[in-house]
């Protein structure tokens, strides 16, 4: 006979404010097999867990029910409690009387209490049929895949490699560096972005533990934590490993037809190109869609001028399959496309530019070599208007969130402009200044006090072109006045949004995204870098907009998580999976056909002495315990450990019985 203990949690007043917990405990004591039932303020707390351990020892319990919150919250906690008390960790059932009762039935305490009693009783019925389960172990492929070569991916790769594990870093562009490589200076210290980024990029290329795959994309993912199998497409670079990065081919390439996306389309880009001078690897690639040779069959100048014969027009895309134990997703962001803003000229006024374009203009390695000039006539500027919250905090554009970095980078850009051109005057239209961060508020204050940037609280209603000037009309809501500013250049503070194709990418891993397309973390507070897919972690702006220090911190956090997985000898796997009773299996292959994970194998096996039969067998390391096979099996030969038919049916039976002697 089972010896059951029932532990009813108050959860502060979360449960006890609605449910009469002592009545639930008293009812539990009346149930067959229940040797002890107690209620306590916080069952999950240390004294709460000790109450359970003491009760197990005093009453010689062999299984328990915890009436508290969702098993998702604390099942693991109580499994550990059982283990500490010397019991099999799977001999605990949780009755969720918080989410399923007190939080949803606060209007009727009497009925809520009865429901709590019933749920507890059902769990008692289930735990009575619980069986001892043994933890399983699966091998771990101790190699990490980092997707995205921005600062997040770089940091994650370096940290994992530093712990001694192998890393493959996949970047879809021809160089790592990401968005940070496009920036001129960084707030709030005004140190040069490239100067702090490039050493890390070089470190990646020199680290023996890191394999760098640039100009490559992940195309297919299967498997699970410890054993991901990933297909990676290495796009043809048309330049092979003999390249020494001298850059002659780029200089001599006559094809200047395309615009450089890296430079915000403000300057030309050759058909053979490196993204920027400090590119890692410093190997150019040929864009076959614009290259004259690939379009017309004539040219081949790059091949002719190359001193090492590194240009190879015959290279093909290559598909490789690699195994990984864990994955860090750091795919970054795009900036909001402001062409949806009619009041700012639908993106058609040349001298209304995005913040990222401004970064390229003021960068010494940018298309104008650091001269801030108007894209329309290449003239220098005097009055510049900055407009905040473009595609951020804007319900009408379905971008109600704050992009977090725009207030800061706008202040930075206004300060840099003043540094470069003391004659200029900057105006900033803002809604609120959000400068929450170490030395951030001081930074914005400095822009206003030391650099004379004029901050106007209000929005711009219209930008007109008048002559060769821009007339910016807006409101200063603090003085209540309408303002008109004659500007040479308008810089928009574009918000951050998920990369194009983020949704499709998330489906490779079955990750979930929020309504905007940012990837969901497992828990907004307590598991901010984990995803619902174990072994897959997120870092940087693909999860939500954030600044460089937060991104780097998050990347290091993912590395810690990955290393924690790799530090284990083997992966502990939940034994809550399907099992086949081969004596009753008819070998009809229905389970084999319906299994979404291909976790069933059909075998000819001796099931009785001298009787070989065609029967199903579960591949333990592949099974996810979804239970589809259990539902599909006609002869009921498949069962799910931890959720056996016996357990479920006795729960159902209990559910249909009235509450007795309450």
């Amino acid at each position, binding site marked *: 006979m089972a010896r059951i203990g029932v532990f009813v949690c108050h959860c502060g007043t979360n449960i006890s404010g609605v449910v009469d917990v002592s009545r639930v405990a008293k009812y539990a004591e009346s149930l067959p097999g229940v040797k002890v039932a107690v209620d306590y303020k916080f069952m999950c707390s240390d004294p709460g867990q000790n109450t359970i351990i003491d009760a197990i020892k005093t009453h010689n319990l062999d299984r328990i029910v915890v009436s508290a919150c969702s098993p998702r919250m604390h099942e693991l906690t109580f499994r550990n409690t059982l283990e500490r008390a010397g019991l099999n960790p799977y001999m605990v059932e949780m009755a969720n009387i918080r989410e399923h009762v007190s939080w949803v039935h606060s209007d009727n305490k009497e009925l809520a209490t009865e429901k709590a009693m019933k749920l507890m009783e059902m769990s008692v019925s289930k735990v009575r049929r619980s069986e001892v389960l043994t933890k399983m172990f699966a091998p771990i492929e101790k190699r990490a895949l980092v997707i995205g070569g921005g600062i997040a991916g770089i940091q994650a790769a370096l940290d994992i490699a530093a712990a001694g594990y192998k890393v493959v870093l996949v970047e879809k562009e021809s160089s790592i560096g990401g968005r940070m490589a496009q920036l001129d200076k960084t707030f709030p210290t005004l140190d040069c972005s490239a100067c702090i980024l490039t050493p890390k990029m070089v470190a990646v290329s020199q680290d023996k533990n890191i394999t760098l795959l640039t100009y490559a994309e992940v195309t297919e993912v299967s498997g699970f934590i410890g054993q991901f199998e990933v297909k990676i497409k290495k796009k043809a670079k048309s330049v092979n490993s003999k390249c020494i990065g001298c850059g002659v081919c780029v200089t001599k390439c006559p094809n200047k037809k395309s615009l450089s996306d890296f430079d915000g389309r403000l300057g030309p880009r050759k058909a053979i190109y490196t993204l920027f001078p400090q590119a890692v690897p410093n190997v150019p690639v040929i864009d076959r869609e614009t290259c004259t040779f690939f379009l017309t069959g004539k040219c081949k100048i790059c091949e002719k001028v190359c001193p090492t014969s590194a240009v190879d027009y015959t290279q093909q895309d290559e598909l490789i399959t690699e195994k990984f134990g864990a994955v860090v997703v750091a795919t970054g962001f795009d900036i909001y496309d402001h062409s949806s803003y009619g009041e700012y000229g639908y993106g058609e006024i040349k001298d209304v530019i995005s913040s990222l374009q401004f970064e390229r203009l003021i960068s010494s390695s940018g298309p104008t070599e650091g001269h801030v000039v108007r894209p329309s006539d290449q003239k220098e500027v005097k009055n510049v208007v900055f407009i905040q919250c473009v595609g951020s905090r804007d319900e009408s554009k379905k971008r109600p969130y704050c992009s977090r970095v725009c207030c800061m980078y706008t202040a930075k850009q206004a300060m840099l402009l003043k540094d470069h051109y003391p004659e200029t005057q900057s105006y900033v239209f803002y809604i609120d200044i959000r400068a929450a961060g170490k030395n951030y508020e001081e930074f914005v204050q400095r822009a206003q006090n030391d650099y004379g940037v004029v901050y106007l609280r209000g929005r711009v209603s219209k930008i007109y072109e008048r002559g060769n000037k821009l007339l910016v009309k807006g409101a200063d809501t603090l003085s209540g006045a309408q303002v008109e500013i004659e500007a040479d250049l308008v810089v928009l503070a574009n918000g951050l949004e998920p990369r194009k194709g983020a949704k499709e990418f998330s489906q490779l891993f079955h990750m979930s995204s929020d309504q905007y397309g940012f990837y969901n973390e497992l828990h907004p507070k307590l598991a901010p870098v984990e995803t619902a897919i174990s072994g897959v972690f997120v870092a940087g702006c693909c999860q939500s907009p954030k600044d460089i220090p937060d991104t780097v911190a998050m990347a290091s956090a993912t590395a810690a998580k990955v290393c924690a997985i790799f530090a284990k000898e083997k992966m502990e796997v939940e034994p809550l999976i399907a099992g086949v009773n081969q*004596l*009753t*299996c*008819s*070998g*009809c*292959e*229905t389970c084999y*056909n*319906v*299994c*979404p994970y291909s976790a069933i194998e*059909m075998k000819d096996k001796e099931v009785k002495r001298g009787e070989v039969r*065609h029967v199903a067998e579960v591949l333990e390391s592949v099974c996810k315990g979804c239970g*589809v096979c259990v539902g*599909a099996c*006609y*002869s*009921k*030969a498949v069962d799910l450990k931890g959720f056996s*038919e*016996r357990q479920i*049916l*006795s729960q159902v039976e209990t559910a249909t019985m009235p509450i007795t002697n309450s």
Partner: protein
Amino acid sequence: MDKELQEIIKKLLAEKKVDWAIGYEKAYDELSTRPAFVQDANDTARLIFNKYCINNLGLYLTKFKKNKLAVVCKGCDIATVFELIKEKQFSRENVVVIGVACEGVLDKKTGKQLEKCENCRVKQPKGADFTVGTGKDSAAPKNFLDVVEFEKKSSKEKAEFWNRQFEKCIRCYACRNVCPVCYCPDCFANRTMPEYLNKNVDAEENKLFHMIRMQHVFGRCTDCKACDTACPVNIPLTLLTKKLAKDAKELFNYESGADMDVLPPLSTYNEADSESDIL
């Protein structure tokens, strides 16, 4: 016709192409036939085929799994053989299907032709290894008129009708035992841990048994009427099996036994499956 049938089987047995042949023989009176199991090439003279050969011999295939078999099949019985092959109960190479042309079979109790034979489209068997005789198929497509009629009733009327029917059930399990696709080594109805079904014979539990059985044979039942014919208390199980066939056709465009390459609708998984019933 019988002669031709006997010769084919004789040859198969003599050449050791099969270990056993399953056919029909005359039973205790003129109107009765029963399954015959022949192992000896010289013993084939007792095999016959006539309009009283009502049994679906596909039933016995799962009971002789280890042997090579020849089986006499009416056109309709071949569907059963195909379903069982799809469910890997034996391989196609291990069965020689001897199709017999059929004019329709009679219920000896009433002397009337079975209702399923009226618009039979496989009087001339299809997909057999050998065929004996020639039959004339009905031009009329399979209809579900009585099911359509029954579906018009209100839930209450339907419940009353079936409650009355299942009150009669004596849970002899004849319907299950003659069903060729009810081949589970251990039926859910026999289980005690857990007890899916109370072993008492009462109307509610009887109903549960029949409903679960119908769920289990959905998309696999070839509507052969073996269960209906075997029932000693005349429960119109045909009405249920025809409903299954109708639903399989309408919901999944599936016809049991028709296509060897298509699996039954509930035995497949596809990420794009319609989930219209899931909120």
